[in-house]
């Protein structure tokens, strides 16, 4: 009986810490890099993203092989020589919405957001801070933003033959249409 009461007590106190979870499995992540040799662009439309409106917890899972490039050769080089998709198939981001109190998830509108967390690409983890917006409309949250990364921070090396012709800096764009998770 004592254990049952303790369990009920824990559940009652734990519940408020979980808000509504919003998810998407068709999130879009694209990157762009302009360089003397050529511009590099790729898009991934099957990205998982989840967000908890109570805690501000924000998580993204990206399957690297799902990035599509205009040129097949670029796609091959990206997977085989740069990000080594066979060895490191996924990239992750785990972070927190920094200005959660300024967002009213019950009121439609566009809210500026800052998300800070840790991003893992190519097996290397780095702190990342991104700014963007949450557009709240019809019960969904459209999260979008962009941030730069330096590929050498993630242990991705540019082959000697093309050093200086491929940009070290890549701009990442994200767009997630998050909908409430149906339990």
């Amino acid at each position, binding site marked *: 009986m004592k254990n049952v009461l303790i369990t009920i007590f824990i559940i009652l106190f734990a519940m408020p810490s979980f808000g509504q979870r919003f*998810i998407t499995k068709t999130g879009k992540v694209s990157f762009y890099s302009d360089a003397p040799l050529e511009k590099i662009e790729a898009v991934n439309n099957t990205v*998982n993203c*989840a967000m908890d409106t109570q805690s501000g917890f924000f998580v993204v899972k990206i*399957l690297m092989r799902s990035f599509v490039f205009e040129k097949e050769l670029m796609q091959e080089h990206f997977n085989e020589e740069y990000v080594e998709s066979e060895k490191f*198939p996924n990239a992750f981001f785990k972070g927190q919405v920094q200005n959660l109190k300024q967002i009213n998830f019950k009121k439609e509108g566009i809210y500026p957001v800052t998300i800070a967390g840790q991003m893992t690409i190519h097996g290397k983890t780095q702190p990342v801070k991104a700014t963007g917006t949450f557009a709240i409309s019809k019960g969904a949250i459209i999260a979008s933003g962009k941030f730069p990364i330096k590929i050498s921070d993630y242990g991705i090396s540019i082959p000697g033959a093309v050093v200086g012709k491929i940009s070290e800096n890549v701009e990442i764009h994200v767009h997630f249409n998050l909908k409430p998770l149906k339990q």
Partner: protein
Amino acid sequence: MKKAIRIGAIGAITALLAVMYVWFFVYNKPHQNFEMAKPEKVLSASQCFENFSKNNTPDDGKVLEIYGIPSSIETADSMVVVCFYFKKGMFGDEGIRCTLLPKFQKAASKLSTTDTVYIKGFCAGYNGTDVIFEKSSIINKDK
């Protein structure tokens, strides 16, 4: 002199052909046609998901054909996704998600969640939640 010109011309034509070959068949080579590709393996959707979720025999980076009864047909933006779900997790239903080639999107509306469907596509891998198939096509077994 004539011989030198002839050798030079042959050299120039050979170099031009080499550049054209590299330009068309290496640098600008087309994306793989997954609709026409022969699957490396045919297996049930449940077996495929089990292989990945238990890290048994991952088949990522391969063209696979899977079969099973779809749990749902989802549409998002311009995509149509055939889903086979087997469990629930942080991201809700988890299983296999097959994004169809545009050519097969119309046919997806005729799929039911009671009949077995055969899907072939490029298996991009497992993201810890779902197994992702890209550029998938619906295989008509009645042919």
